[in-house]
């Protein structure tokens, strides 16, 4: 009776995306707790690495090399995480992190000794340690107000700090990209395609103008909502 055509036997419920908005079950909770603890630890390693290297050298040049490996891995580990915040916003953040670490800093050796790298790495490190602790404690339903406050307050300084570091780094990479034609394809070729990484980086920088305020004010609104209530419910936002 039911006309099931062969091509549609797989239930294409593309309109019902699996949103993990309903509270996770026990297994998922365990996974998330472990995941968030690991992420917190990962960023702590970076933080500790930075501090130790600074103390050892007495200056903050060349600090990038001491944390290069964990720094490049940490943003990638965002992907298996299921965090209770907007997919789009988190997606953007993950992409920009991966882009900055791999496609800019790692790829253009000359910028690795720039101060701007240190600027965004520090901003990210502090942000992420707080953020992953926040998620961990929330999952365990024991969220200290201090952590919640920190998460929704530190960003006010850290966010612009990170963005400044990112933009300065990309800007610093520009002359080298133009000189070497990094990741670029020119005409003529048999695919009739071209890509100019230099122009692409400039467009990325320009895109910060509409995107950054939106993200920033979103966080400010979240702050009002979350910290606005004196009696907090230790709920994950």
């Amino acid at each position, binding site marked *: 009776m039911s006309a099931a*055509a062969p091509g*549609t036997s797989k239930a294409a419920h593309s309109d019902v995306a699996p949103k993990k908005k309903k509270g996770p079950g026990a297994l998922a909770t365990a996974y998330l707790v472990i995941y968030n603890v690991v992420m917190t630890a990962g960023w702590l390693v970076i933080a500790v690495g930075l501090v130790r290297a600074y103390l050892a050298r007495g200056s903050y040049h060349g600090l990038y090399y001491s944390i290069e490996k964990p720094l490049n891995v940490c943003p990638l580990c965002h992907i298996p995480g299921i965090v209770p915040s907007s997919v789009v916003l988190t997606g953007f953040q993950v992409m920009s992190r991966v882009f900055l670490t791999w496609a800019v800093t790692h790829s253009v050796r000359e910028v690795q000794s720039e101060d701007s790298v240190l600027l965004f790495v520090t901003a990210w490190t502090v942000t992420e340690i707080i953020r992953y602790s926040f998620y961990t404690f929330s999952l365990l339903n024991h969220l200290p107000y201090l952590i919640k406050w920190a998460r929704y307050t530190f960003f006010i300084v850290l966010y612009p700090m990170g963005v400044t570091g990112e933009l300065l780094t990309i800007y610093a990479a520009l002359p080298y990209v133009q000189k070497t034609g990094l990741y670029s394809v020119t005409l003529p070729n048999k695919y009739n395609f071209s890509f100019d990484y230099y122009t692409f980086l400039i467009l990325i920088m320009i895109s910060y103008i509409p995107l950054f305020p939106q993200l920033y004010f979103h966080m400010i609104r979240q702050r009002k909502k979350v910290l606005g209530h004196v009696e907090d419910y230790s709920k994950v936002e």
Partner: protein
Amino acid sequence: MDALALEAAGGKKVANGAAVAAPLPPPAPVKRKPAKKAKKAVVFFEVEILDAKTKDKLCFLDKVEPNATIGEIKSMFHKSHPQWYPARQSIRLDPKGKSLKDEDVLQHLPVGTTATFYFRDLGAQISWVTVFLTEYTGPLVIYLMFYFRVPFIYAPKYDFTTSKHWVVHLACMCHSFHYVKRLLETLFVHRFSHGTMPLRNIFKNCTYYWGFAAWMAYYINHPLYTPPIYGEQQIRLALIIFLFCQIGNFSIHIALRNLRPPGSKTRKIPYPTKNPFTWIFLLVSCPNYTYELGSWLGFTVMTQCLPVAFFTLVGFIQMTVWAKGKHRSYLKEFRDYPPLRSPILPFIL
């Protein structure tokens, strides 16, 4: 649903003071049966319209005919709130439920004599025809600008020059033909189910069509364009595929148009006609998309241009989503829908 609409129009206009909510009485002749208590009566409905989000009372209509349609109720609502023309009203039984259709009849809805509807503003609307004409005229004009190498696109020494490769001229003709065909179909062939779509769609759609057209046209008409590797054979084969699919796509549009009498919104299962290009209906629900994919594959092979391949891919993904949706609607609506059909690619997708 059409049967219901007919029944409602045939309606019962027996004036009687009894307060009876009549559920679907058959159109019977007017006769007083003193023994029976249930009398056919015209029971005027009362309609209140609340805001779906705030639950505020927006409008109260009394003395509404039981056979009034949602479309008529929308017109009445529009009178009290002139900023919300009917096209941007979404009327529903439940604040989070589906929109009711304009053809739905009041008394056939699961409501009491005082009906409560919820209203959602769909936002500014724009007609489908307007959107189609705008989004298709762009690529036509833009491509030609690149073809004629209008200044400020390529280096000044190439301004207003023409390409030395004949495939570039052929590509221009095919691309232009495609969009002229689309414009003419919009004006004379298509019969749209909905009059309007949200206004923001025109910006989204035009960005897509115009952006991709510019991107493709830039490379195909570039002074450093490299013609297809396999030369004339490749171009000829691609052209045949392209033309075949253009005719096919047009045939399907005509067949779909003929399913629907002018001004109506009926939905019927499409079947193969005498035109061989429509025989693909045996295997596919939305062959217009199948043929469209084929046309763009032909154009990709003809121009051997990676941006064209990207455009084809993105278009294919979008059309697959649409085809699957349409296929699902067909299956839901028609019990006897042919089981052999796939949404867009025979047996595959």
